[in-house]
């Protein structure tokens, strides 16, 4: 009896701050969103020059110069439709975080374009910033400050008044399981799981229409991970947010995502629904059962060790 009675009130409590959130955009801007896909990336690339190891007194060869250049994102094209959850799977250093930083206006693409609801991330930076927020794998906060102080700062940056923000912060944090007496305590005294929940609250508070989740559950205990996943699902269901989620967790990707893209060496090597990808790989591997998502991931990103060793020995010969 209790559980059924409580459920609607919890949902109502969760939806209360959600209703307020769209007030950050005007009605005309909200209506305009429907005419575009949430995210359109066309042939975007980002290269970095590796620092260190420069030989100032020896001329470096063409090959060495090329080796110093890291192609973090390489000719990526990707579309996310409105209200979709797209999972981006990739190993460490595959370019997931760089892709998220390009969308977040924190990096400028070398070539190609990134558009959020039709707005270019370079030319219309401020507009894009109003539409997005991001949760990264490391919960970055002013650790001496409390969740309330950190979130109040973020809320004000997005134009939310102090009184409104305080009310929403309390409601969202409590909904995420942060006890009221912890809201005013420094974040440095909180566990990583709790800090990550505060990070999610920060993103949620600022009303993102496109939410970028960069491995939000990495390093969390199973309970915290589940809490976060439930919240992400609620976010999409109750607020019609579009979500780009990068993860290592195959179960999480399968449970949350409408479509999955696999990134390797900065390139999108496969994309589709989990079921479609599984069928493709089962066929490719000639399995008499459906492939698992781990098998899909390995099939598209697995390295040929013999080829890699041969490449290494070639490099040693040149040295």
């Amino acid at each position, binding site marked *: 009896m209790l559980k059924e009675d409580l459920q609607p009130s919890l949902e109502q409590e969760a939806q209360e701050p959600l209703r307020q959130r769209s007030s950050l955009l005007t009605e005309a801007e909200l209506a305009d969103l429907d005419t575009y896909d949430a995210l359109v990336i066309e042939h975007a690339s980002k290269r970095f*020059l590796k620092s260190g190891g420069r030989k100032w007194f020896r001329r470096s060869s063409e090959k060495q110069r090329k080796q110093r250049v890291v192609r973090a994102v390489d000719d990526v094209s990707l579309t996310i439709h409105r209200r979709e959850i797209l999972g981006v799977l990739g190993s460490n250093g595959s370019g997931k975080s760089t892709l998220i*930083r390009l969308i977040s206006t924190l*990096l400028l693409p070398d070539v190609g374009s990134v558009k959020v609801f039709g707005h270019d991330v370079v030319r219309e930076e401020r507009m894009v910033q109003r539409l997005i927020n991001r949760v990264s794998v490391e919960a970055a906060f002013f650790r*001496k400050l409390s969740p309330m102080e950190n979130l109040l*700062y973020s809320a004000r940056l997005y134009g939310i008044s102090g009184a409104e923000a305080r009310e929403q912060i309390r409601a969202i944090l409590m909904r995420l399981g942060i006890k009221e007496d912890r809201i005013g305590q420094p974040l440095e005294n909180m566990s990583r799981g709790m800090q990550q929940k505060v990070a999610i609250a920060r993103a949620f508070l600022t009303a993102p229409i496109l939410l970028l989740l960069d491995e939000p559950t990495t390093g969390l205990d199973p309970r915290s991970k589940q809490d976060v996943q439930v919240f992400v699902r609620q976010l999409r269901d109750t607020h019609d947010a579009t979500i780009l989620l990068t993860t290592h967790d195959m179960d999480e990707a399968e449970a949350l995502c409408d479509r999955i893209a696999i990134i390797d060496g900065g390139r999108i090597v496969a994309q589709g629904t989990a079921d479609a990808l599984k069928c493709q790989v089962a066929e490719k591997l000639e399995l008499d059962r459906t492939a698992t998502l781990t098998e899909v991931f390995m099939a598209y990103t697995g390295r040929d060790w013999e080829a890699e060793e041969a490449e290494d020995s070639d490099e040693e010969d040149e040295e």
Partner: protein
Amino acid sequence: MIQARSLSDLRGALRSMGAEANKGYAFVERGWYFTKRYWAWEVVWLIYNVVNALAVTFISTAFQGTIHLTQEQLNHIILYLAIGTAIWSYVSVVFDGVTETVTIERWEGTIEYTFMAPVSRLVHMLGICVFSLLHGFVLTALQLIVLGMFFHIDLSGADWSAAIVILAIGSVSLIGLGIVSAILPMLFTERGAQMAYIIRAVLLLVSGVYYPISVLPGWMQQISKVSPATYLLDGLRGSIQNGKGLASLWSDIWPLLICGAISVPLGLFIFNRAERYAKRTGKLKRNG
């Protein structure tokens, strides 16, 4: 109809200005939270400034034993050095406030969140600088009170309204220099804040903090002419020590106005270029 439309435009503009003010206030409020949480550091900083000011001001009493000075001349030197140390503390707190805020953001990794928020760099930098100016003002006032307990400081002839105007105009120039110095910790995580000391050190050398700029070599005097701290100090000494009004201080006011009008837009322009460079090369990424 037209009246209703212009009224609604006006309301929209006011709402927009209110929203920007709220965003700017975020940085002021955050600065206050830092001050509360790092209160022990505030006490250490205040003690350091007071001890430094006392050490410098005691030099004046040393003259008494070596050369013959009337009490009036001695008081003049004491007040000269007291104003110098006070303004130097103010400049230091403002510069440190701006650069350390960016440094803390680099170490905590929050800089990415601040830079992806829909806030113009003008509002961002103004917010940081306004807190730094208020912070600097309070610490400097406390320093002067303590200094007054050690030395006879006669402020009876001071023109306080002129001093406040000079301080306000001079602070605008400091905002411009503060914005430029904030670039260093943004681009150089580990040593950027220390690199900003160079700007402060040059200001200390050429601006006449502890001695008149006439004692400097000719080429240094030329540099002192482009330092806003030169005019700020000269104006404050004129108003507090000599009781000069605004009309008599015009030779300090117009250079300060020009410095402010140039340094803030120039600082923002340079900061925006540095931000673009950081976004092109991935330097905003957390390093701490």
